[in-house]
């Protein structure tokens, strides 16, 4: 539905080729596209205005020499601006010298406070801490029950009592001290920013627990109102940061950027999935890429790293490079990929994925079908697909409940992949991206992770169709 910013630029820059310098009206045209892209990403109206002014300053006078690719330069400027607004750094959590370190979570209804309280507890546990959860959401039916269930799943104690949320928080603090837990996470009821009585209640919870960290939990899908919400909560509670949830969808998450710009508090954590492990420190540069619709390679690779057996992956990469990659390896890789969740989600994170592939309908059931075909091959066939002739093809098709044509497609594509990998010269396997196989018009380009640290300077982004 939304075109990446790069697609929007394409038309403009086609006109500009051969022109020496960007004229002011060209810059305005480009800025209009940037504006639309940012607004579609739910960046707050006022924030967009400020950003555009800064981008305009940096953009006027850029050379439009063909070799330099002005579109990429401008995207780089926008990306840098986004990163700088988001605050280039990952938050550092320090612990109170007199435990427990108290963390208070607040936010609107349905932002994901309860789930993220548990995710945060798990995260602290991973840092070697002993967290305890306090359920002070006595409003929503069964909210405490939900927290208890989650607490059991991560083996973290949960304290709650009926009655008053403020008293519950006080009692929770006492319980943490009694049990010697060193991190206390308080889950509160969802409340509207304009609900004075409930805002006062959460303020009192804050007063009695003196939190070391107060996080606003906010949904990545939130629109323009995010700023109003964040300002009100910040006025009431003095926020330390934001937990951005539901980032696993396709919302661009521009609201997060607005919150950072307006309230000046960093986004501390990002929740990227339904599982309690889908929770991580927030990386501003990745969201910047996402707002621009550029994919999110680093998150993808990190995800891969979690489920991939490292040695296996390295060996597979090695075999890919020297051309000895077999269908068995392919099958292996498929298994790993399956562990990472739906393929469509993975594809969305790969920058520069050609549109034809990105929009292709992928059902994960199809993977099983593919797997069945490979499993219907003999060991020898898997090691050497050249063995597969007409009669073998028919046998494989029968064995996997597919038709011989499908088997042929599989074999053909696989061979092409092998051929292509062999053609790439000097592939050391440690740096930079590689171009990968494309179907139809050969214009997209796949670029893998930048090789520097996430916040460091980056080469201009490679985007499809701009060279």
């Amino acid at each position, binding site marked *: 539905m939304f075109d990446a910013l790069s697609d929007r630029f394409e038309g403009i820059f086609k006109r500009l080729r051969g022109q020496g310098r960007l004229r002011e009206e060209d810059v305005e045209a480009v800025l209009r596209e940037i504006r639309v892209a940012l607004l579609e990403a739910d960046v707050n109206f006022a924030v967009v205005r400020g950003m555009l002014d800064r981008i305009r300053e940096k953009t006027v006078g850029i050379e439009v020499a063909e070799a330099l690719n002005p579109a990429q330069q401008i995207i780089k400027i926008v990306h840098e601006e986004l990163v700088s607004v988001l605050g280039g750094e990952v938050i550092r959590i320090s612990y109170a*010298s007199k435990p427990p370190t108290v963390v208070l979570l607040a936010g609107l209804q349905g932002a994901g406070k309860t789930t993220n309280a548990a995710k945060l507890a798990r995260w602290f546990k991973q840092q070697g801490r002993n967290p305890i959860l306090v359920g002070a959401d006595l409003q929503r039916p069964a909210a405490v029950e939900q927290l208890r269930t989650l607490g059991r799943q991560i083996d973290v104690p949960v304290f709650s009592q009926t009655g008053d949320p403020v008293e519950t928080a006080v009692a929770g603090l006492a319980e943490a001290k009694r049990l010697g837990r060193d991190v206390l996470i308080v889950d509160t009821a969802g409340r509207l920013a304009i609900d004075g009585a409930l805002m006062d209640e959460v303020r009192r919870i804050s007063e009695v627990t003196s939190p070391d960290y107060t996080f606003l939990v906010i949904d990545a899908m939130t629109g323009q109102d995010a700023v109003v919400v964040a300002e009100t909560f910040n006025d009431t509670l003095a926020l330390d940061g934001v937990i951005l*949830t539901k980032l696993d969808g*396709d919302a*661009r998450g521009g609201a997060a950027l607005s919150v950072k710009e307006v309230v000046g508090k960093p986004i501390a954590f990002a929740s990227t999935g*339904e599982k309690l492990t889908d929770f991580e420190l927030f990386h501003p540069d990745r969201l910047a890429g996402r707002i621009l619709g550029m994919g999110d390679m680093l998150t993808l690779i990190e995800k891969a790293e979690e489920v991939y057996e490292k040695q296996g992956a*390295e060996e597979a990469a090695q075999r890919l490079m020297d051309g000895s990659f077999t269908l068995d390896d392919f099958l292996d*890789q498929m298994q790993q*990929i399956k562990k990472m969740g739906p393929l469509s989600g993975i594809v969305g994170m790969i920058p520069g994925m050609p549109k034809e592939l990105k929009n292709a309908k*992928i059902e994960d059931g199809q993977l099983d079908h593919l797997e069945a075909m490979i499993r219907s091959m003999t060991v020898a066939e898997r090691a050497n697909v050249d063995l597969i002739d007409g009669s073998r093809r028919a046998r494989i098709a029968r064995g996997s409940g597919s038709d011989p044509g499908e088997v042929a497609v599989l074999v053909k594509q696989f061979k092409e*992949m092998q051929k292509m990998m062999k053609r790439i010269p000097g592939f050391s396997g440690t740096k930079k991206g590689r171009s990968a196989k494309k179907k139809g018009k050969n214009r997209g380009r796949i670029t893998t992770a930048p090789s520097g640290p996430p916040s460091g300077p980056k080469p201009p982004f490679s985007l499809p169709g701009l060279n």
Partner: protein
Amino acid sequence: MEPLLLILIVVVIVLSVGSVALVVHRRGDSVTLESPGARGVHAPPVDAPPVDDPPVQSPPAAPAVASLRDRLGKARGTLSGFMGSVRARPRVDQETWDELEEALIRADVGIGATTTILDRLRQSVTAEGITASTELLEVLKAQLKADLAGGDRGLHHEPGGPNVWLFVGVNGVGKTTTIGKVGKQQADLGHRIVMAAGDTFRAAAAEQLEVWAERSGADLVRGAEGGDPSSIIFDAVQRAAARGSDLVLADTAGRLHTKVNLMEELRKVRRVADRDPGQVTEVLLVLDATTGQNGLVQAQQFTEAVALTGVVLTKLDGSAKGGIALAIQSTLGIPIKLVGLGETADDLVAFDPDEFIDALFAAD
């Protein structure tokens, strides 16, 4: 088949090569966490809030269904502010247009829909020779009301087997709460209700629905946590048929529309619910009023999967304007049927486009 293969191949290459690249770059990465106590005593950053700021008591829930306009009026701040400033301008000039655009975008109508709306407004301004700002606003209101007019806003009961109303949406929009409220209202109207706790994923979702079922005297059918939602809804339809209940309210787990397998699960739920004797007569997308532009994509994906009959716009009593619902109706033709304006069952009211637009433009 073929695209799948290509994608797989690309993914395999990217991932295996990428993970190697990452291992290399990781080695140079520094640790991001300070050791405990590294910053000395961590001063709690909570500023004592000013005491001279008495909390505004939220008014008690209106006993009867107050008009949408009154209810919305409370929270209209930003937008009505803009409209006020537009109104104050004697003539329609460029600034008027800019302010209108800003107001609509801030209400989450979205840049696309806003541009369309304002282009049409410009045409009528030229055609009708409008120069006064107040007149301009009236034309805009009429235009927006016309956009929202029509569409089937009723909640449907068909004779025959138990009607199934399916509630779908992304996580945290208020599906379970909405079912609770709809259940209470429908029970008061004399319907016999079975609630199906089809959210087997979120911890304690069934317990939450159970509380609501008790409040409205509805039957609750639930299954094991992590169980198959289709079978729970199947059981609920069976129970309804056996006991002569005419309405099954089916809860489903929140799911992001990007998750192919979960959307597939939802299709199955709908198919099963539609199996004799059940008949699906409403499929309602529950949408949080704070949702931004992603709401349109959500509506599109959900309606593709389960053919939505309407939208329930929740949490409209906050400061969010819910403008995305406008875009959803005008782009996809899916009508807004209900809006949520507060915590109690009475706070879920029928959507009235005229009042909604009037409230958006109310000049306090």
